[in-house]
């Protein structure tokens, strides 16, 4: 029986964890089998949940987020017969570990391009949640994409805050959106968990475009969300569950090539995406896969060539 450990945001965060939940649900619905899950409440529970599930015989144990890296490095060796899967971590060393990273900067690059093309004002916005490197990583790819389309474009970037409340403050998200609109932004990209709900809402209310993140959020405001930067956590989780205890270990990076990240195209945003946009995005995607375009990751040296944080 597989087990799934959600990160502190909770399984209904409308983005990262929810994507995992969707993947697991899809697997459960298809196979009719069940799985164990827990939403973490505190840091100390990370290790606790790992051990409890391992001892109860769950296999594989799928965990979410970089916060699990540290506990996994101590727990995984204690249960050599259990397979662990971790999303968003790529730097550990253990034989029974499947590490899945996503090239968020690549996906963000593509939505950045779309934002720049959709923008009439020449200013696009980025609203992050808590100011942590991962979110800067998103913002950095986005800015590079936007600048690739329009080198003169103005990218306004804001973080919601410095406490975990930053993930759940839609009011602040909303105000930031208004602030960015007043600075001229007419497309905003929200990478801010629950706060993003406020961003998308305000963008829709104020008549500008927004870009969702992680899951496909186009349906939240049909015709008003330009696209969503998909991070196929659901696929990663689904695949792992499907493979069961046979799941392959090692480090896997899911970029554009592996369809681990992407842009969401559906009926809800069909009218917003021009022919030109989709072809440009398609071309860029291919170029990135082929190595013709290199998108710089914020992690490389903790800074971004296209954006100052």
């Amino acid at each position, binding site marked *: 029986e597989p087990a799934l450990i959600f990160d502190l945001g*909770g*399984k*209904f*965060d*409308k983005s990262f964890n*929810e994507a995992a939940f969707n993947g697991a649900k899809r697997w459960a619905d298809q196979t009719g089998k069940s799985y164990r899950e827990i939403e973490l409440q505190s840091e100390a529970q990370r290790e606790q949940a790992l051990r409890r599930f391992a001892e109860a015989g769950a296999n594989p144990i799928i965990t979410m987020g970089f916060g699990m890296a540290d506990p996994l490095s101590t727990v995984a060796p204690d249960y050599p017969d259990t397979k662990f899967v971790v999303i968003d971590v790529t730097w550990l060393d253990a034989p029974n570990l499947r590490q899945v990273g996503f090239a968020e900067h690549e996906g963000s690059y593509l939505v950045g391009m779309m934002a720049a093309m959709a923008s009439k004002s020449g200013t696009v916005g980025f609203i992050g949640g808590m*100011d942590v490197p991962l979110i800067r990583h998103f913002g950095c790819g986005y800015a590079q994409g936007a600048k690739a389309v329009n080198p003169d474009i103005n990218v306004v*970037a*804001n*973080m919601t*805050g*410095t406490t975990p*409340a930053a993930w*759940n*403050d*839609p*009011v*602040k998200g*909303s*105000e*930031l959106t*208004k*602030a960015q609109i*007043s600075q001229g932004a007419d497309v905003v990209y929200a990478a801010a968990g*629950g706060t993003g*709900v*406020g961003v998308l*809402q305000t963008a829709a*209310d104020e008549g500008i475009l927004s870009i969702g993140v992680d899951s496909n959020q186009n349906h*939240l405001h049909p015709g008003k969300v330009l696209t969503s930067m998909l991070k196929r956590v659901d696929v990663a989780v689904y695949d792992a569950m499907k493979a069961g205890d046979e799941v392959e270990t090692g480090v896997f990076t899911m970029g554009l090539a592996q369809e681990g990240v992407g842009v969401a195209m559906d009926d809800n945003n069909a009218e917003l995406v021009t022919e030109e946009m989709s072809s440009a995005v398609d071309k860029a995607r291919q170029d990135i896969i082929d190595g013709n375009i290199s998108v710089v990751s914020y992690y490389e040296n903790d800074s971004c060539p296209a954006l*100052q*944080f």
Partner: protein
Amino acid sequence: MEFFVTLIQVFDSTIRLATPLLLACLAGLYSERAGIFDIGLEGKMLMAAFFSAAVAAVTGSVWLGLLAGIASSLALSGLHGLASITFRGNQLISGVAINFLAAGMTVLVAQSWFQQGGRTPSLFGGGRFTPIEFPFAEAISTVPIIGPIYSELLSGHSILVYIAFLMVPLTWWVLYRTRFGLRLRAVGENPAAVDTAGVSVVGLRYAAVAICGVLCGIAGAYLATALQAGFVKEMTAGRGFIALAALIFAKWRPWHAMGACLLFGLLQAVALRFQNIDLGGVVIPVQVMDALPYILTVVILAGFVGKAIPPRAGGEPYVKER
């Protein structure tokens, strides 16, 4: 000119951010003026935010939502009253408990009601409070100075914003010009004086706590159905505590409360609008801007406000015989 436009926008944002603070602050004012300390403002707002959004989502009527929000906040007020008035319990503990209760209950109920992870469905149409445009707002928006002030700053807020600001003179009037206000202030200063004057201390205090509940209810509904289009867990994000700070800052006076809330709103609006200020090469980290409203609050408090003396009987249950 561009500076002026920015200024208007910052002030506009200030008003939106100050409104929930102001409502909660006035709510606290009624309660604490009557001698019942209330650190449960946060919880009441949160509860109201949830129930207003939930009912608005289900019925499609924001007014029913507002009523539901007020009712839920009132229920928590009743609990606070029961604990601190009837059973003479510790008011701080009761407030802490109410905050926890709201944080847990909202998500729990939301989850078993909507199965959307402690969230309500998004509100649209009649489920939300929409901005009210003043007459001729469109027409005079181009007039310099006056135009933007009238049509952008003053016009275009939800009705709850205007209610919040109207509550300030109303509260002042009630407090200082009516019989009820006199008794309310007296019961917070010396309940025995009120009792021996033949007025029910318990009745007055429950009335105050109830008004507090209503105002917190409006504040919560404003967050979930006017500023936002739905409830998200913990969406009050500490505003109840900031309102409490504003109340102490204002020394429990209505006009000053408005000033304090506007100031807090302004500081937040400024911090939101001016992140990453670049001072000739030295970039001020975003964290500094994030903390700026709080730092400035401390500075102002230390520099200009002086000692705030709460209502004398505040926090103490009225006990005639032990």
